[in-house]
């Protein structure tokens, strides 16, 4: 009975995902009056592909030395560095851009140092700025991926390699390279997808109309030209691109986790000499690159603490509520899908990846068009935000759960079956305890992502459902940059706190 319930709910989740991603686009398209793309749209497509490819490639390349250093060195603060790796990904993009500007901008310390050294200044605006920001946001994620790969190579292999007299170079060729070949394409593909739908970064750092992404073109088509047909076409184009990438990676690589289960500490061979120095430099540079913008955001935020508006705490409370509910919903849906995939319904995997390819803007517009004739949209602002955020976070949760779920199935599937452990008993006594760690990690990730999301609420919000990101947008729209910086800092702290709390909760329930 319970198994059938699981199957039915998995199909239901898949249907909801399809309805929200594909259905909303169809509804948007149904209201179209014309169907055409401009030359600028094709230019946007080109730029989107170029920046996404560069961002993914560079993130993947840089991740290798950093992950290797973290995998094979033991030093004080190593845990903290690995934890820092989650931070940029959790940052609301707008806040991240502000932090990067504070460091790499015209008035930032990097340019001041260059001027002091009589060197030409560095401009962050343009393609390279977009790529820099994307690498900042996604390098940590890639490092966690690759680190996972390193931990997955059994220590015995390294021992065997050493006993055969292999030097570091030979070990790299025979052990690490095959691992990287299986891990890196998947990691790069995820970064590619995330950058494909990038919006705020390209917009602010792009430096002009040359740097338009598809998502930006969708935004403009929706907002200024009110050209629903063009928006739907662009969304379809973006969807096809993402779909192709997802399918290609599913074929090329095995599913890789998002870095849960970092607890496994396998001592890896650590060569000395110049390699020690190289590892040290890789870690130091990365920490500097990741921490400096965060620090800048924190410093900027402290100065405006006195001028925070009275609605702040209510907005923060609303955001927390939305984040927690949507993260829990997302976790449940992802779990249902993962368990169904374990039972052999592989096609559900595609449903779990759908949201990665969907445009949040088009999803919001479609929902708006559906809801508006029935109810005032602002009355549903928060429920819709919860739903959309849950959907958008689902692929990450799914990816976090899948590897551990596969391991659980391999290790304990038969034992559970032989004990007739099924249904809710299996969920309670096997699945939840075994998956607690990735579930906590993924739910934390989903909560933090939802916390910083502005996408849909901006379309639906009335004056009674202001969330923290919306409040920040309103503050900056009215000269209150200092208060906005402080509210951003609060947003940042709350996002981290949520992530940390869920991650820890998962870790605590998995102590075995």
């Amino acid at each position: 009975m319970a198994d059938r319930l699981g199957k039915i709910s998995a199909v239901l989740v898949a249907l909801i995902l399809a309805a929200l991603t594909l259905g909303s686009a169809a509804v948007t398209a149904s209201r179209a009056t014309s169907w055409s793309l401009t030359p600028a749209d094709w230019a946007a497509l080109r730029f989107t592909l170029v920046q996404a490819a560069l961002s993914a490639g560079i993130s993947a390349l840089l991740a290798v030395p950093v992950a290797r250093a973290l995998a094979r060195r033991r030093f004080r603060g190593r845990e903290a560095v690995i934890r820092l790796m989650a931070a940029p990904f959790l940052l609301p993009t707008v806040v991240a851009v502000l932090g990067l500007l504070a460091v790499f901008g015209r008035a930032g310390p990097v340019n001041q140092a260059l001027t002091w050294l009589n060197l030409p200044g560095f401009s962050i605006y343009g393609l390279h700025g977009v790529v820099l920001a994307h690498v900042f946001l996604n390098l940590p994620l890639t490092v966690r991926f690759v680190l996972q790969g390193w931990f997955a190579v059994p220590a015995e292999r390294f021992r065997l390699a050493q006993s055969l007299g292999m030097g570091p170079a030979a070990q790299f060729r025979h052990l690490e390279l095959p691992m990287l070949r299986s891990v890196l394409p998947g990691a790069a593909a995820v970064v590619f997808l995330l950058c494909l739908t990038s919006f705020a970064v390209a917009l602010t750092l792009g430096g002009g109309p040359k740097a338009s992404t598809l998502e930006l073109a969708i935004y403009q088509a929706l907002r200024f030209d009110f050209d629903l047909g063009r928006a739907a076409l662009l969304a379809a184009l973006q969807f096809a691109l993402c779909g192709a990438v997802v399918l290609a990676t599913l074929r090329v690589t095995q599913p890789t986790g998002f870095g849960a289960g970092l607890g496994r500490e396998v001592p890896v061979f650590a060569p000395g000499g110049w390699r020690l120095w190289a590892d040290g430099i890789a870690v130091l540079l990365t920490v500097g690159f990741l921490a400096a913008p965060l620090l800048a955001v924190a410093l900027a935020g402290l100065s405006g603490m006195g001028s925070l508006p009275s609605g702040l705490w209510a907005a923060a409370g609303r955001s927390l509520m939305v984040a927690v509910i949507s993260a829990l919903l997302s976790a449940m849906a992802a779990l249902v899908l993962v368990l169904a995939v374990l039972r052999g319904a592989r096609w559900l995997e595609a449903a779990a990846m759908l949201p990665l390819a969907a445009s949040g803007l088009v999803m919001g517009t479609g929902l708006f068009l559906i809801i508006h004739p029935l109810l005032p949209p602002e009355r549903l602002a928060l429920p819709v935000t919860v739903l959309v955020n849950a959907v958008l976070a689902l692929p990450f949760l799914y990816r976090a759960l899948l590897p551990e779920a596969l391991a659980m199935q391999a290790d304990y599937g038969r034992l559970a079956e032989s004990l007739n452990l099924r249904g809710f008993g299996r969920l309670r006594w096997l699945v939840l305890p075994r998956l607690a760690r990735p579930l906590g990690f993924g739910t934390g990730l989903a909560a933090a992502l939802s916390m910083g999301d502005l996408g849909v609420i901006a379309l639906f919000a009335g004056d009674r459902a202001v969330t923290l990101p919306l409040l920040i947008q309103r503050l900056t729209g009215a000269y209150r940059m200092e208060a906005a910086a402080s509210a951003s800092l609060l947003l940042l702290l709350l996002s981290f706190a949520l992530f940390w709390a869920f991650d820890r909760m998962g870790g605590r329930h998995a102590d075995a």
Partner: protein
Amino acid sequence: MLTLDGVEIEQGDFRLTADWSVGAGERVAIIGPSGAGKSTLLMAVAGFVALTAGRVLWQGGDLAGVEPGQRPLSVLFQDQNLFPHLTLAQNLGLGIDPDLRLDTGQKARVAAALARVGLEGMGARRPGQLSGGQQGRAALARALLRARPVLLLDEPFAALGPALKAEMLDLVAEVASESGAAVLMVTHDPADARRFAVRVVLVAEGVAQAPVPTAELFANPPEALRRYLG
């Protein structure tokens, strides 16, 4: 009586047939070279590997379509016999009720089973806190609680030292004879078979031969067994 009636298992190039029975309470060892299909045969009886042809019968009833957990048998796997995130008492409790809703009487039975295998008072511990031998005992205690008429052992004690393994086999023999359960035990060690089994099934060259009394087999080993024993 457990009957393998014209059983055939095919997996790619691999092929195995079996056509024999094991009586209630009988202790049978399954021996043969590695890769011959000893474990596969056991897993087919347990319901984890599908048959290509033939039937597995218990007391004349076909087990086809019966889920592994519903079959009249308990399995001790090579490893992963206990859930590491549950306590011993919980692990054993799953043998009584998969939802772990135990009343006082059932809890007492769990404690008694632990005591029976020499793990008295260790119910609150987790498997990670036990030695390999103790883990084996706990798994055996759960089989005791499940009280199924057939016990399948897929080399669960292979990693233990000779003395400890002998001790465990004796314990299995004791427990099985108390409950009257038949035991099918996979092993690659002829000493295990001699010590434990009344009859032996030799698995080699695609056939699981009908069980032969242990002493008889080793006194007059067929060609395949001689090659295996070396």
